[in-house]
């Protein structure tokens, strides 16, 4: 697994707390950038001037990940929390987490199943009944190292898993990685690489970025659902790992411009259409600012959970597709 991708996945960056990741990206892209800027909401803009620019292209990937936030501390020193972004509550039980800047380690817990009445055992898990155990014996103990409002991150190590990459938040570290690799090249047109914030809580950074950059066109680079697993009907499989970059036709937030989409497809050596029109990404916020927008995604299994998987070949394919487009257009 590429060391930059590994580092990107290991850095904590829940929506609204993207500073650590942003600092790392700035450090890595500085040698290649013509201009670097951070706006008041936290979006990072990296301008790469073209050799003979006729238009301004925006490439966009989000820096934030889903996670949790400390909402209260019980008298016994347990941490109650709220969810940031879309997480299926059932994936939260019995997970290792890190809290705040001090990266306090904890484990998520819930009432043991054998203590529940029989009729409650099959009910869906509710995060409001969960807590994080940091090993504190009292509220005072806990308050010494954890505060209300501290972000909570999944504690996952990025590494290779067979042929695949495993890590926390490949959605959208995969996209950030792709942009960082593309930044090393110079193209004919001006390209603004935008690393947005708060995508997971409502595409907020992209909404600001679109109005600031005002590009002629925009390609949103994200990570999307991949349901090529056991017991899933093939018609419900949105994408497949290893079958190339996923091209969005329509999702809950966008109907991608057909001509633009077809141009991107023609630049791809291996692509697949996203088969299920669910989910949305920064494209939803960009295109309503009257900007021609398309969306290319990295297929990812188990996204929005503690660990996700992606194929390095798909990552390579994603980068090549965009590179070919920037060269030919």
């Amino acid at each position, binding site marked *: 697994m590429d060391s930059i991708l590994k580092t990107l996945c290991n850095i904590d960056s829940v929506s609204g707390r993207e500073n650590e990741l942003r600092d790392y990206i700035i450090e890595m892209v500085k040698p290649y950038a013509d201009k670097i800027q951070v706006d008041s909401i936290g979006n990072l803009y990296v301008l790469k001037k073209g050799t003979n620019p006729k238009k301004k292209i925006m490439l966009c990937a989000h820096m934030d990940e889903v996670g949790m936030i400390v909402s209260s501390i019980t008298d016994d020193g347990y941490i109650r929390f709220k969810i940031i972004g879309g997480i299926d509550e059932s994936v939260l039980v019995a997970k290792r987490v890190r809290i705040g800047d001090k990266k306090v380690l904890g484990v998520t817990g819930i009432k043991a199943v054998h203590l529940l009445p029989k009729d409650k055992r099959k009910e869906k898990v509710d995060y409001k009944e969960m807590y994080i155990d940091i090993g504190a014996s009292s509220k005072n103990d806990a308050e010494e190292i954890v505060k209300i409002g501290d972000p909570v991150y999944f504690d996952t190590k990025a590494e290779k898993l067979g042929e695949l990459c495993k890590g926390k938040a490949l959605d959208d570290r995969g996209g950030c990685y792709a942009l960082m690799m593309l930044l090393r090249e110079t193209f004919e047109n001006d390209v603004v690489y935008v690393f947005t914030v708060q995508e997971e809580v409502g595409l907020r950074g992209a909404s600001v970025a679109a109005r600031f950059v005002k590009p002629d066109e925009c390609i949103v680079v994200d990570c999307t659902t991949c349901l090529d697993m056991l017991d899933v009907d093939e018609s419900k499989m949105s994408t497949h790992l290893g079958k190339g970059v996923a091209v969005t*036709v*329509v999702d809950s937030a*966008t109907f991608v411009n057909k001509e633009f989409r077809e141009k991107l497809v023609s630049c791809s050596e291996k692509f697949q*259409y996203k*088969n*299920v029109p669910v989910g949305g990404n920064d494209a939803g916020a960009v*295109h*309503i600012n009257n900007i021609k927008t398309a969306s290319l995604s990295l297929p990812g299994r188990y996204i929005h959970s503690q660990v996700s998987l992606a194929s390095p070949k798909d990552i390579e394919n994603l980068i090549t597709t965009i590179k070919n487009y920037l060269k030919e257009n």
Partner: protein
Amino acid sequence: MLEILSALNSPCGGEEHIKKYIKTKLSGACEDSVGNLIYRNKGGDKKLVIYCSLDEDAIVVMSQKDGKINFAHVGDKKIHPGDTVSFGGYKGVVCSDNKEKPTEDMYIRTVGNVEIETASIGNLEGEYYCEENVVFMKEAAARVAVCSMIECADCESDFDTYFVFGVMGKKSSRGLVAALREIKPDKVLLFEQTEKENLTVKFLATGYVCSRELVEEITEIEPSVEKEVDSKAKSAVSFAECENAVCVGVPVKFANNIRQEINLDIKDKILNIIRKTMKKGCE
């Protein structure tokens, strides 16, 4: 013109044909970056947008196997097994193997089991039928509004008037939002369907309250207009992001069906509203 507009398929994301036709009627109309078709009548200084959406429900091919097309439906109409779908020159029928809940797990079979390219955009079929002054057609309200806007496009105007024939209306009025953010109008007049029996001005809808002055303006122009108050109703006007936005409801029957019924007597009233709004001066 209405019959031609009805025959031109314009699924959300694939509105090319209808735009091409409108361009033959309004030379000088051009498309913006998201695909809205805009015709400008430069009268005065203050900007007025008159809007209606062009698109109809879309059927998007997601995947296919063994002659069964898995599709995504973009829009608000109810689809049932037996409905006909058109993908360019190819026709298909909506099917379901689920006898208990036939509107679940629907798929499409094409005539002759012809394979349709993934990501192709098709539309639901619904023939045009007219008897005296009553018409049955797809997107009846929007099409009558389009006709009216075309007829008024070159009328005298005290405003710098933008006629916006919007795309992606079925996708939370994305085209409308994009157009308004670009144009930044002083005033917006929108047309969409209503299930009421008369022409309405939408006073209250989900996420939107219209100013009393604008409501009075419309009722002054056309006294037969009814005030529509429904806090649960969705309306494109709630996406307008403009204080001076007013939505006129065009009455249709069977609003959620593929074809609606509309009485063409309404058209004169719509024309009246458009012409007088354009001439209302820069108040």
